[in-house]
């Protein structure tokens, strides 16, 4: 049976991880390569890097990070943030990332998803979605609206329609972030996650709001997510990945326990 994936997300700015991550054993908590190694050994099923700087002059720094991470870890990892075109995708993938995540650029130019899938295969193309709950309208019947530019620009585009369109264009996976839940540590947005997951056939990674292992249990069962993104709850040492997985295993959620 396919295991539900637990995926730590690392924010990177100018080649350094940004959050104050608490780790023992002299790990350089600002070094994304060292952090990736720690999470790889701690049982992460995959790792997501989010490049916050994402300007073209910083791109080379991120590519160097990707290259070094690829030497250290032997599980899939993806890179998102500021991916604007096929050249950006190619650079990240050739440096050793398994997947590349597109968000704003895909909403502005949906052809990018199709081009990426054709050039590199659907399995490499993750659609990142930042979504906000709104009052349902004719344009947004689901009551969930797409927002771009890191949560600053609402697009008047229905999130469910966009998820289905992106699947049709060739996205291999969706990383679904609720802006309302993000940073609250009060739990994932279950209604949104279930809505999207039940209406696409590609895997959905839930993002935003994780604070306790029970939040992951909820989103992987009630929310129908295939994977869960986690950040603060492991970065600050509140929980280990093993603790989270053992909690899920104890409640009958299939997770990878041997690594």
């Amino acid at each position, binding site marked *: 049976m396919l295991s539900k*994936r637990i995926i730590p997300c690392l924010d990177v700015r100018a080649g350094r991880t940004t959050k104050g991550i608490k780790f023992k054993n002299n790990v350089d908590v600002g070094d994304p390569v060292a952090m990736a190694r720690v999470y790889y050994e701690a049982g992460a099923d995959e790792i997501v890097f989010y490049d916050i700087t994402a300007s073209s002059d910083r791109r080379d720094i991120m590519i160097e990070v990707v290259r070094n991470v690829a030497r250290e870890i*032997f599980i899939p990892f993806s890179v998102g943030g500021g991916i604007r075109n096929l050249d950006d995708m190619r650079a990240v993938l050739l440096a050793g990332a398994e997947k590349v995540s597109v968000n704003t650029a895909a909403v502005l130019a949906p052809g990018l998803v199709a081009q990426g899938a054709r050039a590199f295969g659907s399995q490499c193309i993750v659609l990142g979605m930042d979504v906000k709950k709104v009052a349902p309208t004719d344009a947004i019947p689901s009551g969930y609206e797409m927002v771009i530019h890191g949560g600053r620009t609402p697009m008047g585009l229905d999130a469910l329609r966009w998820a289905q369109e992106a699947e049709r264009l060739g996205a291999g996976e969706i990383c679904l972030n609720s802006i309302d839940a993000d940073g609250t540590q009060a739990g994932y947005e279950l209604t949104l996650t279930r809505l999207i997951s039940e209406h696409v056939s590609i895997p959905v990674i839930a993002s935003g709001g994780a604070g306790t292992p029970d939040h992951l249990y909820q989103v992987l069962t009630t929310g129908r997510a295939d994977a869960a993104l986690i950040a603060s709850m492991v970065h600050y040492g509140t929980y280990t990945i093993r603790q989270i997985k053992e909690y899920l295993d104890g409640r009958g959620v299939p997770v990878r326990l041997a690594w």
Partner: protein
Amino acid sequence: MLVIIDYQAGNLTSVVRSFKALGVEGEVTQDPGAVTRASRVVFPGVGAAGKAMATLGQLGLDQALRECFHQGVPILGICLGAQIVLDYSEENGTPCLGLLPGRTRVLPRQPGLKIPHMGWNRVRWLRPHAVFKGLPEAAEYYFVHSYYPDPAQENLVLGVTEHGVTFPSAIGTRNLVATQFHPEKSGRFGLQILANFLAWDGSHAE
């Protein structure tokens, strides 16, 4: 010399890096001559069977692979490389290499079942093989695929995995062994498989 066949089917970076981590510098090549001179061959790949077979033919790599197989050179197929070693693939209705009898079939769609099969899953080992020795039962491996290899003979299925159906995820005959999953992305146990392959002499009792 370990040769990794490049037939423009996906990114080989992680395959190369994994062998490098095991201390072996693989030669990535599109040259049929280099393939026939190899002492060990990795046949990876992601993508569609139709395009893959066409490219192999254009580059003359199909004949090179057949030659390696008949000469007893140890070959490891990965993902698409585990599918197109069979006779035929349902994907694009493609006649394939025919090194191992059988067909590649599409994973059946079922309500609530995500296709592609993407993520970590177990393998239930059915027959012993030098390349898969020393792996704990609880180990999981990383999969990304919508089709699976279905050998014509039961004794060619080394391990099976469940995703809606039970499908062969590790297959082999003689000096050819192949996995539907990606050992190069399957952590420590995946690296163990690659290390086992590097030590394998290509013999296998069927």
